[in-house]
């Protein structure tokens, strides 16, 4: 019973009691926009290669447009995150939380990058999340040669 109450509480808190409007053509169902989108895990490095880095984080299900973009602002100066990478994901109306994952390509080897993450709906509406500035370093040339 306690587990049941806990699940209800989590569901309600995440703002993701699901609503589905049956549509004739069954296009992507939308989820009610969450009252507040918050990062509940991460951001963290999923993969760091010489040519590719993937950053991931988890939020409560933000709802809204079925497609969202994870956004990473990054750069080599923590005060000037001038570059942007964004990757699309599809929301699953059935899931309480959403994992965002963003690909950063064509990075320089042996370089430290600073970044923050956020997300938005496909129509450009910001989800209102923004992480603190974090950092990572790409493997150097010598590491690459050894692989």
């Amino acid at each position, binding site marked *: 019973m306690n587990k*049941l109450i806990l*699940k*209800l509480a989590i*569901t309600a808190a995440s703002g993701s*009691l*699901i609503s*589905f409007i*049956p549509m004739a*053509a*069954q*296009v*992507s*169902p*939308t989820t009610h926009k969450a009252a507040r989108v918050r990062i509940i895990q991460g951001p963290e490095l*999923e*993969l760091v*290669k*010489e*040519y*590719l880095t*993937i950053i991931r984080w988890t939020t409560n299900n933000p709802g809204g*447009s*079925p*497609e969202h973009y*994870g956004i990473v602002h990054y750069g080599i100066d923590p005060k000037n995150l001038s570059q942007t990478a964004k*990757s*699309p*994901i*599809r*929301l*699953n*109306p*059935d*899931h*309480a939380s959403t994992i*965002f*994952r*963003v*690909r950063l*390509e*064509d990075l320089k080897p042996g370089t430290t990058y600073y970044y923050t993450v956020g997300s938005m*709906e*496909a*129509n*450009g509406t910001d989800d209102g999340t923004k992480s603190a500035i974090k950092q990572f370093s790409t493997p150097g040339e010598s590491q690459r040669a050894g692989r």
Partner: protein
Amino acid sequence: MKRARLFGMLILFAAGIGALLLFPHIGGAQTSRRGTPAPPYNPYPPGILPPDLTSEIARVRSEVASIENEALAEWAGLPPPTLTGQPPTLQGTGQRANQLLGKLMNFDENISPFKNRACGFCHMPYAGFSGPIASVNLTMVAYPGSYEFRAGKRTAQRYTYAPFFPVLNYNETQGLFFGGNFWDSRATGYLLGSPDAEQAQHPPVDTQEHALPDTACIAFRLTTAAYRPLFETVWGAGSLNINFPQNAETICDTPGGASQFGGSATPINLTAEDRTKANNVFDHWGNSLDQYEASPDVSAFSSKFDAYTKSKYTLTADEMAGMELFNGKGNCNSCHIDGRGTTATVLNPGFNPDHSKTADVTPKFTCFGSANEGLPLNPRDAIYYQNTPDFFGFTANPDGFGFRDLGMGSFLRGVAAPNPNSNWTPFAPATDGQFQVSSARNVAMTPSQCPTTEAGSTPYFQKGFFHNGYIKSLKQLVHFYNTRDVYPFNVTSGNCPAGTIEKVNCWPMPEVKNNIDMTTGKLGLTDKEEDQIVAFLQTLTDGFTRFYPDSDKFTGTCMTCNPATDPDCTPSRQGNRSLIQTPPLPACGSDICGVSPVPKPPIP
């Protein structure tokens, strides 16, 4: 009257079969301009065309003829509908007549210059109306057209449930495209209101498929079709009464793209009135084919899953586990929407997908959207080799390996096909690399003699998955979604580093890096969980609750291998022996990647 028509039809069948036996290449001789031989177009290096291609083409053509003859017999036995009421309606058998007309046209080889290709040639029922030749699916991916061996660039997409896709539209609120048909959504439905109907209009005049040089050739060929009376019953007496010039046959015998046409899309000289009539016939061609594809003959809703939603079938433990993974950890239903589990209830407040009410009793297992899943370039694809002129002076792909398939992006730029809505063009960079999210239904359908798509100890039917056929089994498909970003390598296909196995623990780089969907790529599924999702996908095959029409027409041979002696005889490594090295890739052709609005970031 009915008996007389039946008798006439029987004579026609007998004559047709007799002719086929006596002249096995009837209609297939590749000649042009009345007798000029057209040598096969073969720009392919050794090993690109499968060795059994000629015999397999003959096999499928025979199956196509068989289905056509049975459809003719069904028409002969169909009571004529009665045109009545206001608006006039074909009362009684009108709907079946229209569906049957679509079926007859779908399996009519005469709708091609050399009278050797029907739509069904690339879309056979036993393969879920996708590619019927295992060796083609394993190798060249695209199917050879009427002028052999021109070929397209993508796998033959399944017909099933295609009619349910809405007219392509950009939803400004959602910031997304929905609908359309074809991998790149270029059949928008903007004119006929049905993407599926407009899809049916493309292959007959596609230079690498049926290759008719003029849409009016369809009307021209229908004037001599055995089922012409049915066409006129459905679409009106006189609808095929068009005054064609004497050279119409010569023109329609010549494949599209031939230099002699000088780029004209209407080489048949018709009066304005007759051109309008021919255009109407072309539209009706699409309409009737759409109705066939929407009918239970094609989109049947007769799978185990459908039985399950009616409590007529109990999923096995693995199938049930697969469905829960499909909805849960695998996240497949974020795009392949299954209509289940979208309502959390008080009794079941969690998100266990199978304890809530069914939201849609006929889910289509697609979101009708598009995505770039990051498939590697498949160097076996026939398109890369067609960079020299053929006998008719046509070159399908001047870019050779500089061709990049940008999918919907190329369509929105008007590169792959004309774009009927210029407001969509600015969205091209955001859709580069995106391909339609096909319905997952019938992804596993195979001929009954070859009961699976997966290599192993039982006979199997080789299919090719995704738009470029790079993936060769459902296990690989799920493993790709599961591990694309776990085993990424900055190499092209055929060049995985020593110590790795391509598609097992090495995924070559995406052909198009822009807009890669990151919903999947690292799902954390175990090997067993991957298999369970495959088991669930196999429940989506029509033909469980009732016979799937024409699914018994396969006359070929299943593929077999011995897992005890062949390390590639597993679903994980299936087809790996056919991998070839991708050559060093030249830059993307300027006619593709240099067209405004150019891809962002640039595509190398």
